[in-house]
């Protein structure tokens, strides 16, 4: 009986405690930098698209919400012809970001993308591309890859040795 009364009193005191409710539209929750929200496509430091159209994100996606078509420019640099993410299907699992070999696709801390029209949730490449390097500043895939695609000559990349002249016998 006494413990019941004590319980009631302690619960009553909660009237004056600080409330945990975050009143959302006025007061926003603090999101962590690695929060998995809206998906973006980033650019490399030189302003080119990072995406090389390898389809790994589309394969990794468990709900098949990513569609793209790879193509090449005159220098042999691959880029997506179109890149489409259907956010009404996306489950924000981040597998696409994990799969991406060039840090192009990234999830950012923004979840406020509710819409009345389902079709508005299908984002095209123009909607996805941002003018930023995202979480990996200074990284340019074509500067570390061996491939020559108009960014650097063969043998001039980072940590890349000069091409070996296979016709010479000198060491």
């Amino acid at each position, binding site marked *: 009986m006494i413990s*019941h009364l004590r319980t009631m009193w302690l619960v*009553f005191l*909660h009237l004056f405690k600080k*409330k945990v409710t975050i009143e959302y539209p006025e007061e926003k929750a603090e999101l962590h930098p690695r929060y998995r929200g809206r998906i973006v496509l980033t650019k490399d430091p030189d302003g080119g698209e990072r995406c090389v159209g390898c389809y790994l994100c589309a394969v990794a996606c468990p709900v098949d919400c990513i569609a793209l078509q790879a193509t090449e420019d005159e220098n042999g640099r691959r880029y997506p012809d179109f890149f489409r993410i259907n956010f009404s299907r996306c489950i924000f699992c981040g597998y696409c970001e994990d799969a991406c070999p060039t840090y192009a696709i990234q999830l950012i801390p923004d979840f406020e993308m509710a819409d009345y029209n389902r079709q508005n949730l299908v984002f095209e490449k123009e909607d996805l591309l941002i003018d930023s390097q995202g979480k990996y500043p200074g990284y340019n895939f074509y500067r570390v890859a061996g491939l020559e695609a108009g960014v650097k000559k063969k043998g001039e990349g980072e940590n890349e040795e000069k091409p070996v002249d296979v016709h010479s016998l000198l060491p």
Partner: protein
Amino acid sequence: MSATEHILIVVGVLFVLLNIAAGLIWVERRLLALWQDRLGPNRAGPLGVLIVLADTLKLFFKEDWIPPFADKWVFILAPAIVVGSVLLSFVVIPFAPGIVVADLNIGILFFLAMSSLGVYSIVLGGWASNNKYALLGALRGASQMIAYEVFMGLSLMGVVMLSGSFNLGDIVAAQQNLWFVVTQPVGFVIFFIAGIAETHRLPFDIPEAESELIAGYHAEYSGMKFGMFFIGEYLGITLISAMIVTLFFGGWLGPAFLPPLAWFVIKLFFFIGLFILLRASLPRPRYDQLISYGWKIILAIVLANLLITGAIALWLRG
């Protein structure tokens, strides 16, 4: 009292009561939220009071579904009984001098009879639903009501002995010098416990225990029929609080700087708040614990209280 005055009182009491019962939706949700460190509904209207309107509209527009396996007419009748019987009990409660619908000589007996009739709604609702959970809830409700009805009546007998009347107005008048909660503390506590069981509020919401019986006797109800059970429960809280105030806390009596009706309402809302606090803080006992607690402990205490009160009353009269 002229006929028009009487009709005004009846309509006024009905209007205020139904509004209090609806308003308690908001009061309960806000208070429960505050006691659980939340804010509760605070968006619709000032402080969220329009949630009452939203809830009512929602209930009205929901599909009013009568299951094909239900006993149709009994199914419809059951929710009306709970509201009807509780509203009838309010007939005898004196809200302030002159504001009482029917100044019956047998007020307490009438209240007990009407609150006992309320059990029919649970039993009929559970039976007509033709659902095993509803039936189990109805069975529990019936046995709980029978058990706690006994103590409810017996706990009031001390008050009746001291005031010498069954009329609630006379009982309030008899508390002019001293509230009965001082002379009948045991009676008050037992009436309060029995009142919780009678309105089947938490922690004694055994007939509708969500975690065991889905929703108990009203599992099959939807729309405004469910709303009637809902309103009936809030009316029940108001009724038990009003009875506690009238019988043990001096009804409308209070210092003269506030009108009698204001004192009644203040005390009423204090006890309604206490009911909600009980819901926020105490866990539900097991069914057999509740029943054995009632018959083995409370019955003994209430009979002893009756005996001692009777002896003292006799001794005082010499």
